[in-house]
């Protein structure tokens, strides 16, 4: 599939569905059916089996023509995590059932992975799925679920065999969030908002046709989900002074009266770090584009968290009296989180989560140390014991 072929298909889509006169959803469905949703996906599933790099072209040309997009930030979990997993492990039937409404945004997805007792150590999860006829009955508690209250479907990992070691007894499902056994409770954060939820699962029924991958193979399936999460976080390009550094540099330039030599030195140091992080991301992007993916994605997430935390802390100090205030503590359930949105106090508090969510900085350092540097793993006593015998 050449660039010119792709360009031609875009032109045809636009000719047949003038964005100015087509219903948003109708356009998105037509785009999916034309294979222009995600060009590297197979034909018939929204793609053209084309190189991933061509997607940029499609997105640019459609944006230029005023075509609607699928509001990717609202459906990030579906796009970034559920879709690659369904593509890789789903049956043909599952792929055709789930991917189109996922991509168009008709069906929002969420992720039922973490539990109160299984965070970094996800494989310790205790939510049980018990076979019952041609389906499963699920009981347990999940946490840190964004979009749970708007989601139609969830990707879910549950324990189907407690008698084998913990990584071996997990199975991966698609869970219907409208099941009466699913209860979603907002989980308020230190910012005052509730971006996330707790999800209580009580006798939730899942048909076996909604299982992804073999029984007991859920850990391997989940790796696809999680690896795609990390790639998604690390892959964005950024302009100079993009992100938190831009916010703080702007405050600095606008408020000469707040400047001190101490803050000046610290800001210059962070400016350098931010620019180096930006160049690192740019280099990673070039590596991916030239087919040499590197392990720098983990680096990006670590750097991003550190920078966001340092800079947002510095901004509060810089603001002086204004730094003592907060915009609004009332509990809200935002659909989209903008790390640099709202005011300095919010940014400061929200940034604390950057080194926890989606893999803590500690876990990322372990991964770098072991997978990139080849350092030996910690001695572990939990890998070979049956799950039910593990101390808790």
């Amino acid at each position, binding site marked *: 599939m050449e660039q010119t072929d792709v360009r031609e298909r875009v032109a045809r889509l636009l000719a047949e569905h003038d964005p100015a006169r087509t219903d948003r959803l109708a356009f998105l469905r037509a785009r999916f059916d034309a294979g222009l949703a995600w060009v590297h996906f197979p034909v018939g599933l929204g793609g053209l089996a084309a190189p991933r790099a061509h997607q940029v072209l499609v997105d640019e040309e459609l944006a230029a023509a005023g075509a609607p997009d699928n509001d990717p930030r609202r459906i990030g979990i579906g796009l970034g995590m559920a879709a690659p997993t369904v593509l890789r492990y789903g049956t043909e039937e599952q792929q055709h059932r789930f991917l189109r409404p996922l991509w168009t945004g008709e069906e929002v997805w969420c992720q039922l992975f*973490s539990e*109160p007792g*299984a*965070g*970094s*150590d996800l494989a*310790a999860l205790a939510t049980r799925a018990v076979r019952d006829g041609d389906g499963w009955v699920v009981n347990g508690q999940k*946490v*840190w679920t964004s979009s749970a209250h708007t989601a139609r479907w969830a990707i879910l990992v549950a324990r189907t065999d407690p008698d084998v070691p913990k990584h071996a007894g997990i199975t991966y499902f698609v869970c219907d969030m409208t099941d009466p056994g699913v209860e979603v409770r907002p*989980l*308020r*954060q*230190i910012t*005052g908002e509730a971006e996330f939820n707790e999800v209580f699962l009580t006798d939730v029924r899942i048909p076996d046709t909604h299982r992804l991958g073999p029984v007991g193979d859920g850990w391997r399936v989940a790796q696809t989900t999680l690896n795609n999460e990390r790639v998604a976080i690390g892959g964005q390009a950024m302009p100079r002074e993009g992100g938190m550094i831009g916010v703080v540099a702007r405050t600095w330039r606008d408020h000469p009266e707040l400047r*001190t*030599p*101490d*803050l000046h030195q610290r800001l210059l140091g962070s400016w350098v770090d931010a620019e180096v992080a930006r160049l690192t991301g740019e280099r990673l992007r070039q590596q991916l584009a030239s087919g040499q993916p590197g392990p720098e994605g983990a680096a990006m997430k670590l750097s991003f968290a550190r920078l966001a*935390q340092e800079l947002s*802390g510095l901004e*509060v*100090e810089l603001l*002086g*009296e204004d*730094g*003592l*205030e*907060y*915009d*609004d*503590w009332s509990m809200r359930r935002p659909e989209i989180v903008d790390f640099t949105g709202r005011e300095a*106090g919010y940014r*400061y*508090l929200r940034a*604390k*989560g950057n*080194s*926890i*969510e989606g893999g*803590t*900085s*500690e876990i990322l*350092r372990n991964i770098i140390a072991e997978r990139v540097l080849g350092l030996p793993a*910690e001695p*572990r*006593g*939990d890998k070979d*014991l049956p799950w039910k015998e*593990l*101390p*808790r």
Partner: protein
Amino acid sequence: MSGEVDLLYSEVEEELRASVRALLARKASAEAVLGRCESAEPYDPALWRALAADLGLAGLAVPEADGGAGAGWREVAVVMEELGRSAAPVPYLGGAVLGTAALLAAGGGGLLPDVAGGRRVAVLAVPLTSGPGAALPATVAADGAGVLRGRVTSVADALVADVLLVPARDADGVAGLYAVAAGDVEIVRRTSLDLTRPVAHVLLDGAHGQLVAAGELAEAAVRRALLVGAGMLASEQLGIAEWCLATTVAYVRERRQFGRAVGSFQALKHRLADLWLEVVGARAAARYAAATLAADDPDAEVAVAVAQAYCGALAVRAAEECIQLHGGIGMTWEHPAHLYLKRAKADQLALGTPGHHRAELGRLVGVHM
């Protein structure tokens, strides 16, 4: 310098600590504090009565002749440590520290007995961000009859003040410290980062002030109050850091991941060891500041600058580590860690940032640009 200065806690101080801690454990649990800071009445009047009047802590630094306990800033520092450790919502910093220190230096203005007895709260009306050595603020004007017009922004504990001690200047630029009844001013509560010590703007539109001190005495009283306040704040910051360290250690000893207590992982152990190291340093620095303030030692300015530069950053770091090492649970509203993070961050701005105090120190010890 420190050759003769006692940096330990005396037995009396340890007893004082025990009684304050016991009271706070009963009346200022994390749930109670969290519930209150979301209510319409963010301060706890019953707790304040118990602390200020029953335990006599409002007048710790006030001489017995003025109705106080005749102790001093060393003892007040111990109370501040405990208040930091519980993030209790009481007007101790604005009243018993800043207000009282200003009154003590200004001659009292007849207010000390009521203040020391916990019957009235007299809060120093300065922006909480004022560092020691800052010029007396000129945002309030006084006329010859003591009628005051102007505003003071970001005043800590103003919400529950009975009396505001307002620095002002008259038409000739002469400074004065005026006592103003809270009912005579408008107090505008701000939505504050620190849930347990909200700031408020004080608007004076013709309020009548009673002159407590004038001229150089007024300026000196405000300077002294800010220096004492900054020194005492270091002990509060120490208390915050101690709570964060102890709470984190307890959590990582219990929390299991990968079949082990997460506190057995060496990276966490080393980070907590480093944090402990800094807490140990903060304790020495805060004690030295309190001891030199108590003794009116000429080294007090250096001592306060060192303590603030060190403890201000440490409390924030400890609270940040506390949240990080709690993982997701530390990010929730239900867990008290955020109360300490918010208090620590606001405290970092209060009475001079660490950068302000380092600059001050450079001047004091001759490490100039």
